[in-house]
């Protein structure tokens, strides 16, 4: 657990992956380019001394991930967000099943999200049911720009997608995480479009839509939609590491998010292994708005606000009782392995 100015901050990393981009798993040149592009993002926003080598980055494995999140990373819980990319990788890049290998080992520490692709039709609906039955899903990560055969993507407001969203409602899967982030997909499809989230969020008020990467580079459209739709949230993955080498820009983005969405609808995510929480969590916790930003937006980036997006808001969406979790983590497998139990004991005594 992270401590900020003597105060405990329960960290739920809202966006983590266990991916495999090893050369043996690459099925299409797009797979190689994809991981190279990720690596560019990694090096661009990671302090030099924290950067990984490419071989590690391709496939880091369960053990390293557990170390990086819990032993060294200040993370108390992580939410797996799968990214299938089945056309690019033989066994998929970061599937629910791959993530489950770790999530099932430490079920108290991970939330395992599933995924769907409306282009899979009936088979896809059956797969979503199967995932839900197996893992009791509370959320899905959606990658609308994924290639599938000749198709270069899909829209969240299509008839087919609505069928899957209705299935989520029926199955009690409440949290939908569409990736709306920087352009790593070719061509111009959806290049700056978050409009499909608007229609979906209006049509499914019982679902929560966490727009990953806060729509960058469509932050303004995202903010405007989120201001109208109370069930739209912003995931900070990609925005967060800007706190490290573009702190002023990070402050502006936080100013916009707090201005339009407020402090209850922002969720932290490291996007691990794009970036590592060990340096990212402290960097974000230390981030401040400049006086002119506070003045311009009329908002504050206080410890209370940070505690909300660092964990409390995700806990709300995923029905996580933070106090009960702290009690549990006094003596769970991870705390025993890394000798972390005492920090939760101290915390409970507060």
């Amino acid at each position, binding site marked *: 657990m992270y401590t900020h100015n003597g105060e405990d901050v329960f960290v739920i990393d809202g966006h983590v992956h266990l991916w495999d981009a090893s050369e043996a798993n690459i099925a299409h040149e797009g797979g190689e*380019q994809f991981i*190279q*592009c990720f690596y*560019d*993002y990694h*090096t*661009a*926003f990671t302090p030099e001394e924290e950067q990984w080598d490419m071989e590690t980055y391709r496939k880091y494995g369960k053990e390293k991930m557990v170390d990086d999140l819990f032993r060294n990373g200040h993370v108390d819980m992580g939410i797996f967000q799968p990214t299938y990319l089945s056309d690019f990788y033989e066994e998929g890049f970061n599937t629910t099943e791959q993530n489950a290998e770790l999530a099932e080992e430490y079920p108290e520490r991970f939330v395992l999200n599933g995924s769907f692709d409306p282009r899979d039709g009936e088979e896809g609906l059956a797969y979503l049911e199967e995932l839900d039955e197996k893992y009791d899903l509370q959320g899905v990560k959606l990658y609308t720009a994924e290639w599938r055969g*000749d198709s*270069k993507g899909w829209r969240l407001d299509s008839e087919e997608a609505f069928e899957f969203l209705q299935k989520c409602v029926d199955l009690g899967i409440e949290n939908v995480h569409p990736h709306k982030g*920087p*352009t*790593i*997909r*070719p*061509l*111009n*499809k959806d*290049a*700056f479009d978050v409009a499909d989230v608007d229609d979906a969020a209006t049509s499914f008020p019982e679902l929560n839509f966490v727009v990953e990467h806060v729509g*960058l*580079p*469509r*932050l*303004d459209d995202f*903010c*405007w939609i989120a201001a109208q739709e109370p069930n739209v949230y912003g995931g900070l993955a*990609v*925005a967060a590491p*800007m706190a490290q*080498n*573009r702190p002023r*820009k990070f402050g*502006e*983005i936080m*100013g*916009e998010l707090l*201005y*339009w969405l407020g402090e209850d609808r922002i969720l932290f995510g490291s996007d691990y292994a794009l970036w590592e929480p060990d340096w990212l969590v402290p960097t974000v916790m230390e981030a401040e708005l400049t006086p002119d930003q506070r003045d*311009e937006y009329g908002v504050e980036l206080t410890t209370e606000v940070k505690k909300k997006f660092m964990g409390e808001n995700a806990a709300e969406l995923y029905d996580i009782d933070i106090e009960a979790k702290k009690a549990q983590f006094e003596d769970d497998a991870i705390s025993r392995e890394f000798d972390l139990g005492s920090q939760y004991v101290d915390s409970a005594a507060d």
Partner: protein
Amino acid sequence: MAATDPTEAGDDASSDEDGGGEAPPSREAIVERLRRVDDPELDRSIVDLEYVDRIDVDGDRVTVAFVLPTAWCSPAFAWMMATGIRDEVGTLPGVADVTVDLRDHMHAEEITSGVNERRPFQAAFPDAEDGVDAVRHKLDEKARLARQHAAVEALLDAGLAPEQIVALDRAQVDLDADGDRAVVSLRDGSVLVPVDADPLARYLEKARAVGLAGDDHLFADPAGDPISPGAFETVQARARAARVNVDGQGSVCAALHESRNGTAVDD
């Protein structure tokens, strides 16, 4: 001409056909001309962004190589920049032929050959859903809104009230009044207010590009409609968000460019 400065369109059209026996252009002249080509998403010149990798001049033949922050940058954006380079340098006196060379991009071959052979975007990318002009227009609309924020802030700084700002038309603004100061005329010219000219000039350039000439109203909401005084604050907040978005994306690209290509860009 997609990625070129619209205010310069048609300039030097007579020199398009061949070099006309003129002296080969200097490298400096080529760089100056390339300033007119922008990254449409970031609303900044490819020269300032350090995308230009190499310029070769062989008599009246010029080759411009450029590289983008990632190999995955949108092909539509890359296409706009490539055609911009081709068309802008192609209209320089003394240039008979321009070859564009996009490097280290996943669609380098399609874009380089497509632009050099003057094929349409859709021929090079049959999968593309939107034509490149439609994409350009959307980006220009965003850039216009982002630039409006700075222009309106300048007017507020100069002492204008929101209801005066939303009621302004183009005829009330004299950009060339006095060096870096523009003059805004209010109350039928009985009051003249000096204003920082640059944000207004930048705004007007982009407003023209999206067909907002400002004859009736200088400023507009995101849909291009006049702003009612009651909506002033919301529209200005949305314009600010558009500016933060463009600048934020600029930072992402600058960091990627620095990391991949070792080029530090002031963002």
